[in-house]
């Protein structure tokens, strides 16, 4: 088991660069600061990662 960093359930918004917490197991979260919506994927270690934007919510 990997050593916990304390930031497993945090991701950094690529839009405003703010770190925010994501709900464990969630596959979609909005940044609380800029409201950009992100798809989330999970490492089996319980570590969250941004997978990509919710494309149909991305402003053209």
């Amino acid at each position: 088991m990997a050593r916990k960093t304390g930031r497993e359930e945090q991701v950094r918004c690529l839009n405003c660069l703010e770190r925010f917490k994501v709900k464990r197991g969630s596959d979609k979260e909005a940044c609380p600061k800029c409201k950009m919506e992100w798809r989330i994927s999970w490492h089996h270690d319980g570590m969250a990662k941004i997978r990509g934007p919710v494309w149909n919510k991305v402003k053209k």
Partner: protein
Amino acid sequence: MALNKKIAYIDLSEKTVKMENIPLEMRKKYLGGRGIDAYLLYNHCPKGADPLGPENVLLVSAGLLVGTPASASARTHVMAKSPLTGAVGSSNMGGFFGPEMRWAGFDHLVIKGKAEKPTYIWINDGKIEFRDASELMGLAPPQVEQAVREELADDEIKVMSIGIAGENLVRFAIVETGLKNAGGRSGMGTVMGSKNLKAIAVRGTGDIEIKHPEEVLEYDLNFINGIVNTKFGRIMQKWGTMFIYGVTNSTGLVRVRNFQANQLPASEDLECENIEDYSFGTEGCFSCSLHCRHKYIIKEGEYAGTYAQGPEYTSQGAFGAEVGCRSFNTVLTGNHLVNYYGLDTLEVGSLIAWAFELYEKGIITDKDTGGLKLEWGNDDVVLKMIEKIAKREDIGDTLAEGPLRAAKKIGKGSEKYLIHVKGMSNLHSDERPTPSLALGIATGTRGSDHLRSRPAIDLYHLPEPVLRKIYSYPVPYDGPLTSDYRDYKGKPWQVFWQEMCYMAVDCLGICKYHTKFLSPNNPAFKEWPELIKLITDLDFTPEEIWEIAERAYNLEKLFNIREGFTRKDDALVDRYFDEPTPDGLALVRGKSIDRKKFKKMLDEYYAHHGWDEKGVVPDKTLERLGLKSEPSNAL
């Protein structure tokens, strides 16, 4: 012991081999691997040599720590004058070839001349012989390895070979070992092909004496635990380098349709998570704990059922974003095909994308393409183009010459659509919003270089105190540093620092994923001296390792200067300056590289290196680094 491995001078024309010890002095000045190779290239490759001629020298080496308990000490380095650029040609691959070569008793091979007929070199526990390779011609590298193992009745033999692309002198042919470990950039496979050298096979049962074995295992365990527990390490173990696409495409930092866009929307099918549907496990290189290479079977299309390994981030661009394709199966198939034929995946993807744009603009037509419709998003055509390039058919024959020669042949203003530096195509990242990455690719000694000059951690928005801690050691730096990757301040120092870091790790023969490339928490100058001491008993300070890296890097620079490269070649194509990014997040949209600021960055970068404003290495710097008497022909 680790320092008693030999250098072998192999003349393919005369079929002679001479073996010598490597003086300790050379180790103290260059360590090994890419460092000593830089010395050998400058000393053995005459000025103006034809890269495809017998005078060009092919250098194959294993770094100082390769084959030891040092984590990820797997790298083989290959160097020559590049047939693609005419500058330093250099490439690096993982796998198990380098360790086996050391166990066979050799750290460096210097190969000159040209064999009369297809040949492979067989290195077996201190002995070197020339063997007939006529039965191996036309085989893909994994098939070559299998055939040699059967011929010599030993399944432990490791083989570095070329595919048909190298035999056909495609100027960006790779050298490859195993199924997928490729020395991809700058055409080192082409040099092998030009020498009628199909393969090098090695088998070694010798030892590498470790000076302090128990201590090094304990020290290395800390290394390993540190690396695998980083966020980066854990992500790499699950998804490989493909995770990078999720960051860069989401932001707007990928090249799409050959620079016409910088983000590929709705490309979920290219994201790294898709590998979970294909992979049945991962593999690693010698002594590595990350195991970042997936094993997969292609599920659809003409190559369904084929087993392959990978892919890397480069293939997501080459067979995805750059050509407007959105199929993970195409990425997997493309990755397999370039390894099968022995082609640089990055160069192939960039040139196909370029050809697609030329077709879109009517500069080339169906007549030039043999009837193929070079239309964005056409997966079948993208995959067919790979074969055409390898076999030099139709438009493939033109593209096989590399960007500049291909543009010269096509004419009609085609050159202005190329995305290259010094004649080598760029990775599919879009550097318009990232000045540090732009400077890195412009100044790399082997041409456009996304690996050896890249301050990738610049993208992580690290706080300034963290950046300062990294970039002020081992050499003091009190200039500006900024967390904003769009800013120009401090980036020349970051590029310079990373060049030294990567050169040092290439001299040691350790994988770049185990240094401060994609993680700020990985080892570098502070940690290496103890590792070297425990394995070899050689004493270096972090500052001395930095100086070794500088010395070797300056030799690469001197080689390029001797071959006629000047400041004007440390440049980006006009599109970087003239075409702002149309897409992406707000923070990267509308960005282009500012010409004045780029010039200022280049001036500062040269100053950090101790070069003059023209990028020439002055006597003062040569003296400081002990290079005044080069070429010295000491080795």
